[in-house]
């Protein structure tokens, strides 16, 4: 039979054993114990105490501490505070070292599916700014000429310019020269006096506005999470007299065909003659003089009509809805990238008929391409027999901004034949998925690499990659900066399993 004193001594000893054996979630480094003093047993460092308090509760730890030597313990080492201080010092050193770069980024170097694009990048840690620089040499080319026989000849290679040349050639010969002149830059005698300046400033402003400051990045290193990167764009384009005038540090030759004002269409493309081997400075972009302003061809809009007095679409509109549905597959299961939504504005004699007609559109979207009805939103269009479908925001794209997306290493996302089939992978799908944005595909949407102007996170994937490269640090991710607090010290941690103490980890300590 134990005396009360003996009983208490045994209880305290049991607590000590239990505390020392208690599982803790803290990193191993935080549990490091200071060098032992053989004469006095093991001394506990600050981290160990905190970890034990969190797992066993402060009451048990306090009792154990009473058994510790009363003399000053050895200096604490490897504490969270030290880790914090070291990380912050490294962070300040990183910032004080100044700008990182500029450095050239070649999308082909990290994305095996890529064969185009290139830009320079610089990171200024003091300003928390990632500067993306795109440089181009602009060659101004006539979109059309007139031959000695007085016939307009299309130079700009699109179907639309061919149609325009045919229209001009239906005019009397005497009237053709004036029309063809509208396809000539002012420096070569064209009538639009400021067209070259307008093009250069329009290119710069449209690309910068489309791409800057869309998705912040932050450093993921421990205690560096308040270090961020906001993406700024700097586009420098300058006129050259000939293709050979492109400087070695310019990423692209921009062949810019003059077209008549109001022209809709034109061929716009990006290529890298020589392929991957040609590198970040070997790109060619073809655009027209109208490509630095918003498109006028309403790519994200479809007009509909309903059979008079009925809830049914006209046969022509059924075709319109089915074609759209086939271009807009649902996001694949598990994708983080959402498919674009649709706004369906419907007219009808009353609210009921408008709802019936909306349901008819939903049915055809589903029949035509399996479009999930939850993607479509109803909009009351009042009285009438018409309707309208808007894809996503419906905002018009500026072609130069889209083409610059290729310079940033991104593929098209719109649909077409072959590899552009709706639902198929793009050439940036895999690299975007590796950065956490899964399911990029070819589909009609308001994305800038499809038919709209919205720059989504997956479109920043090469900027993120470039940031990692220029800082020689892989610890970056999407998202705003986060507040960094120093580690908390020894505090009052209630016993787990008691109010305020969190879940009981299942130790013997009560």
């Amino acid at each position, binding site marked *: 039979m134990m005396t009360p004193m003996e009983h208490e001594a045994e209880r305290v000893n049991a607590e000590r054993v239990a505390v020392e054996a208690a599982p803790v979630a803290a990193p191993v480094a935080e549990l490091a114990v200071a060098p032992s003093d053989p004469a006095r047993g093991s001394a506990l460092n600050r981290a160990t105490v905190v970890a034990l308090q969190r797992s066993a509760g402060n009451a048990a730890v306090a009792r154990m501490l009473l058994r510790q030597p009363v003399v000053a313990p050895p200096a604490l080492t490897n504490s969270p505070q030290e880790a914090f201080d070291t990380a912050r010092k490294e962070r300040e050193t990183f910032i004080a070292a100044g700008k990182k770069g500029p450095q050239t980024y070649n999308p082909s170097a990290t994305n095996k599916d890529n*064969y*185009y694009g290139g830009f320079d990048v610089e990171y200024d840690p003091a300003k928390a700014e990632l500067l993306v620089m795109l440089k181009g040499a602009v060659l101004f080319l006539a979109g059309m000429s007139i031959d000695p*026989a*007085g*016939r307009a*000849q299309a130079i*700009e*290679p*699109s*179907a*639309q310019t*061919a*149609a*325009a040349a*045919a*229209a*001009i*050639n*239906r*005019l*009397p*010969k005497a009237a*053709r020269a*004036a*029309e063809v002149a509208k396809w000539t830059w002012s420096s070569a005698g064209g009538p639009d006096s400021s067209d070259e300046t307008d093009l250069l400033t329009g290119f710069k402003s449209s690309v910068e506005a489309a791409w800057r400051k869309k998705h912040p990045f932050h450093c993921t290193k421990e205690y560096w999470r308040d270090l961020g990167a906001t993406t700024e764009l700097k586009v420098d384009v300058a006129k050259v007299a000939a293709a050979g005038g492109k400087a070695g540090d310019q990423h692209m030759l921009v062949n810019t065909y003059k077209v*008549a004002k*109001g*022209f*809709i*269409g*034109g*061929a*716009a*493309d*990006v*290529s*890298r*003659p*020589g*392929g991957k081997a040609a590198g970040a400075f070997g790109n060619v972009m*073809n655009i027209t003089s109208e490509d630095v302003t918003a498109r006028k061809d309403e790519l994200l809009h479809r007009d509909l009509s309903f059979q008079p007095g009925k809830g049914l679409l006209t046969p022509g509109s059924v*075709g319109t809805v089915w074609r759209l549905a086939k271009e807009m597959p649902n996001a694949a299961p598990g994708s983080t990238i959402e498919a674009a939504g649709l706004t369906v504005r419907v007219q009808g004699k009353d609210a009921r008929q408008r709802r019936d007609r909306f349901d008819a559109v939903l049915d055809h979207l589903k029949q035509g391409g399996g479009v999930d009805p939850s993607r479509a939103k109803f909009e009351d269009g009042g009285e009438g027999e018409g309707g309208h479908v808007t894809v996503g925001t419906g905002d018009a794209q500026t072609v130069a901004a889209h083409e610059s997306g*290729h310079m940033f290493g991104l*593929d*098209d996302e719109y649909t*077409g034949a072959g590899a552009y089939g709706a639902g198929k992978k793009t050439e940036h799908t895999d690299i975007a998925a590796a950065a956490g944005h899964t399911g990029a595909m070819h589909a009609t949407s308001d994305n800038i690499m499809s038919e709209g102007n919205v720059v989504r996170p997956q479109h920043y994937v090469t900027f993120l990659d470039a940031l990692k490269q220029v800082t020689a640090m892989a610890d970056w991710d999407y998202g705003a900066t986060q507040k960094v607090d120093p580690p908390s010290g020894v505090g009052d941690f209630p016993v787990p399993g008691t109010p305020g103490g969190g879940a009981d980890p299942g130790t013997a300590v009560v």
Partner: protein
Amino acid sequence: MSDAPEPLLLERRIETGEDAYIDRITADGTVWTGGNVAATLEDGDLSFERSEPSEPRWTRQATLQAAPLEALRRSIADSGFFSTPAEHHPDTPVIHASREVWTAELDGRRHTSTLHARGTTTAEPLSTLAAALESALAATDTG
């Protein structure tokens, strides 16, 4: 789809995205334009009309006289078109470029060849056909 005029002698179809503009000459020398994009000029203002890609419209423009029609036939026969590959690609891919689809029918032979990345890619037989087509169209020009 409205049927293309037949019998065919030569057709050039220029495609940009979903838009197509077509010059087509039938064996009897009739000159047609077609496709789903058409341009009009009125008082100096250019406007475009589009139809669904699956619904090309055809407009009869003129008729070749016997001499230019025979010259066109000779040019087609001498161009080497019937032995040119069905596809001409650029050395490296060009993202969403226009393309040009040529089809000719002569002496019971019919052949189609596609030039991808129009404006970047060249193929000699197709350049020869382009010059011959332009000569034929110029021969109908009464402006």
